[in-house]
């Protein structure tokens, strides 16, 4: 109820912001934002982190994009970008984009359909100068080829119908790259068609962008420049924002406990708390005995008290959910009454734990002789904190966990190699769509399926929902998948996090998205009322 109310308030705030463009936007000024860490590279296609997409999304355009002024990412909020229009053929396997004419890259070269073809050839490994890493290759697995018809038309030919294919084009993760610039240069000196031109990237210090005077959307962007300052120390950067040295915080950088400090020390600042579509989840290595035994995994799932987790970590503000983000922000997630039907989600936690203890006792474990296990997690507070709570909860089913803090830089390498038994991980989802989330995290052939969970029945269901044109029917299949994932304990989701983004009251025209943190950083509508 509280989250529904909060969501309604957030939406009305966003709607008010949208209803205000009657105010004349002022041109000029520099938008100053702090960055929370050293961004790995400038190439959005090669990274899977908000650290890159947030500063660099403004350099590029997509074919289509989620409306930057609407808080929800849905099929209905997709608007044209480099594509003026799009259409499916009668077989629903060919998606043709009519491209905008007269658009130029920042280096003056014309944008054509060849650039579109080139970008997706790189994404599907068909270009010799392919990406050094391609984290979202799975998004495009159904893409057979991209054909061009002249300079201003590109057609995406699919192997089978995929109605939500368009959603992936609208993400901040899906910019169009220029054909004539190498992938190496795109990592260090990116060229785009977007509202801001890349100026300078001083590692560990700052990233600067300047207004693109030739931007094809006349009159935009409103600010002359965006300057990002890297401040890794959280106390320092929050202090700097409170002292008025920055116009905006890094997106979702203000945690719920910190939000109180920021709003009390900078009462005029606008702070919006929103779902992040980043989950904390339990990863269990099914190849590491005794966790290869489904009974042990089931006992672990029964030990989890999600309500206690979110009470401790976020004063109850985070969202309990299955794999998909729950409503009201999430379009595909289950409402609480459905969620409780999932195995391991019962409201009666004590009963579940008693069942878990019984399972463990049947396997020869007891309070006096618990199962020892190292709970691996990344050495970052947002990972460590839930891991500590998890260890405490596992005790309730005779599992004695010990925190194994892994150097943050080698976390994914360790998990990919299977060098863990039990772990606590965070997973962000780029677009609120089952095709994105389910293929990426739970399908047998996804490289980002960290636990290597593989169930052919689930794969078949994922394919089934992906082809379903009727939204209601598709949702039913998605919920069926949710049941299977919960039964199989495939990466049990503990909670979806919420976090705040703050900006000074004179920053106008910015709308925070409510069901993804990766898609609203174009900054072309932002202006400074100074």
């Amino acid at each position, binding site marked *: 109820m509280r989250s529904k109310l909060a969501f309604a308030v957030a939406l009305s705030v966003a709607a008010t912001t949208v209803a205000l463009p009657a105010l004349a936007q002022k041109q000029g000024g*520099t938008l100053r934002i702090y960055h929370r860490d050293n961004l790995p590279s400038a190439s959005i296609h090669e990274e899977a982190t908000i650290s890159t997409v947030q500063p660099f999304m403004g350099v590029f355009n997509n074919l289509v994009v989620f409306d930057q002024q609407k808080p929800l990412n849905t099929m209905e909020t997709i608007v044209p970008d480099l594509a003026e229009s799009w259409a499916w053929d009668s077989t629903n396997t060919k998606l043709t984009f009519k491209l905008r004419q007269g658009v130029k890259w920042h280096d003056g070269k014309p944008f054509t359909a060849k650039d579109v073809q080139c970008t997706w050839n790189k994404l599907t490994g068909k270009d010799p100068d392919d990406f050094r890493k391609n984290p979202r290759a799975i998004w495009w697995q159904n893409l057979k080829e991209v054909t061009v018809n002249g300079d201003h038309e590109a057609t995406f030919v699919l192997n089978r119908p995929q109605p939500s294919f368009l959603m992936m084009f609208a993400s901040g993760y899906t910019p169009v790259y220029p054909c004539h610039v190498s992938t190496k240069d795109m990592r260090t000196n990116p060229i785009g068609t977007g509202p801001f031109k890349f100026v300078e990237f001083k*590692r560990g210090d700052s990233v600067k962008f300047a207004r693109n005077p030739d931007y094809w959307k006349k009159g935009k962007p409103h600010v002359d420049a965006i300057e990002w300052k890297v401040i890794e120390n959280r106390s320092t950067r929050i202090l700097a924002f409170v002292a008025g040295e920055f116009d905006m915080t890094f997106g979702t950088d203000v945690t719920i406990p910190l939000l109180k400090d920021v709003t009390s020390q900078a009462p005029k600042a606008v702070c919006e708390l929103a779902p992040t579509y980043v989950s904390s989840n339990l990863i269990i290595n099914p190849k590491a005995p005794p966790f290869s035994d489904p009974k042990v995994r089931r006992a672990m799932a029964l030990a989890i008290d999600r309500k206690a987790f979110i009470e401790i970590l976020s004063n109850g503000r985070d969202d309990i959910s299955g794999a998909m983000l729950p409503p009201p922000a999430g379009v595909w997630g289950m409402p609480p009454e459905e969620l409780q039907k999932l195995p391991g989600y019962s409201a009666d936690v004590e009963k579940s734990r008693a069942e878990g203890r019984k399972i463990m006792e049947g396997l020869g474990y007891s309070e006096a002789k618990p199962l020892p296990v190292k709970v691996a997690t990344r050495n970052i507070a947002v990972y460590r904190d839930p891991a500590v709570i998890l260890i405490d909860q596992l005790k309730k089913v005779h599992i004695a966990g010990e925190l194994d803090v892994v150097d943050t830089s080698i976390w*994914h390498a360790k998990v990919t190699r299977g060098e863990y038994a039990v772990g606590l991980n965070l997973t962000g989802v780029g677009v609120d769509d089952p095709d994105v989330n389910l293929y990426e995290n739970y399908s047998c052939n996804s*490289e980002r399926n960290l636990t290597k969970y593989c169930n052919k029945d689930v794969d078949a269901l994922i394919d089934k929902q992906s082809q379903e044109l009727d939204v209601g029917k598709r949702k039913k299949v998605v919920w069926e998948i949710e049941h299977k994932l919960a039964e199989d304990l495939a990466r049990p989701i503990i909670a979806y996090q919420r976090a705040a983004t703050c900006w000074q009251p004179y920053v106008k025209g910015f709308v925070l998205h409510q069901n993804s943190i990766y898609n609203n950083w174009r900054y072309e509508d932002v202006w400074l009322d100074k």
Partner: protein
Amino acid sequence: MGAYIVRRLLLMLVTLVGMSILIFVMLRLVPGNITDIIFDSAGFVNPAQKAKIERQLGLDQPIVVQYVNWIGGLMKGDLGYAYVSEKPAIDEILPRIPVTAKLAALALIFSVLFGVPLGVLSAVRQNTALDYVLRVISLSGLSLPSFWLGLLILMGFVHFLGWIPIYRSDTGSMWEELVLLSIPAAAVGFRSSALVMRLTRSSMLEVLRQDYIRTARAKGASEGSINYDHALRNAVLPVVTIIGIEAAFLIGGLIVTETVFNIPGVARFLVEAIRWRDYPIVQNLVMFIAIIVVLVNFLVDLMYVALDPRIKYED
């Protein structure tokens, strides 16, 4: 003396070669490498692509070949390419050195200007209220962690007084920069000044009890002349040693201070490079620091001769 200097220079060369091997090997013993880290921000690891990157970076070659390539490049002034930014390592390192050098120099000046006079004062006023106050200050300087002190200073100067900005889009004039750097420099120098103060005090107390001080006093020399001309000159040798050592170890304090005050210097960059296993940056920077340490020690040894005529290095 000439032969001594030559001997020391040769010894320095041997030390640096040893250091280079140590740095090179130890860096590769740390778990994880750059390819793991490059993939980390993509949230997965693809073994085939990983192997391709390793080949491109020369990490698939035997460690001896990698070492020879590095040293060979170093001899020609080629520091290689930074793995993360894919830019020449020299372009990444050089712009950051002046920032840290200024900060380190200011911190050292602070520690000497405060540490030596206050140490003398504490010794000549032994067991007075002033001595106790100075001893408490020096003890707090040694016991306060620099990150905490830095945060306190930051809160005071940024939040309450608004004297120093965290965010600056330009560096301003040289004088302006020095003024801004003086506050973080004081945070680093406070610990060193406490150490210098305590050492100056104990050296002075020892010297002040010597017969020749009593003789000077009997001859009617003024207190100022006794304390500064006779006592301090003889008490200063261990202090010079500790200042030399502190100059070398300052880098540790600078890492924390540059992080807390968000100063884009070489110390913070080094930690960042270690975290990213950016070998070309780390090994060249640590080598640079090693050269500074060895040189400072050499200069301190030479200063002994100037400060104390009794010391002579045999040829």
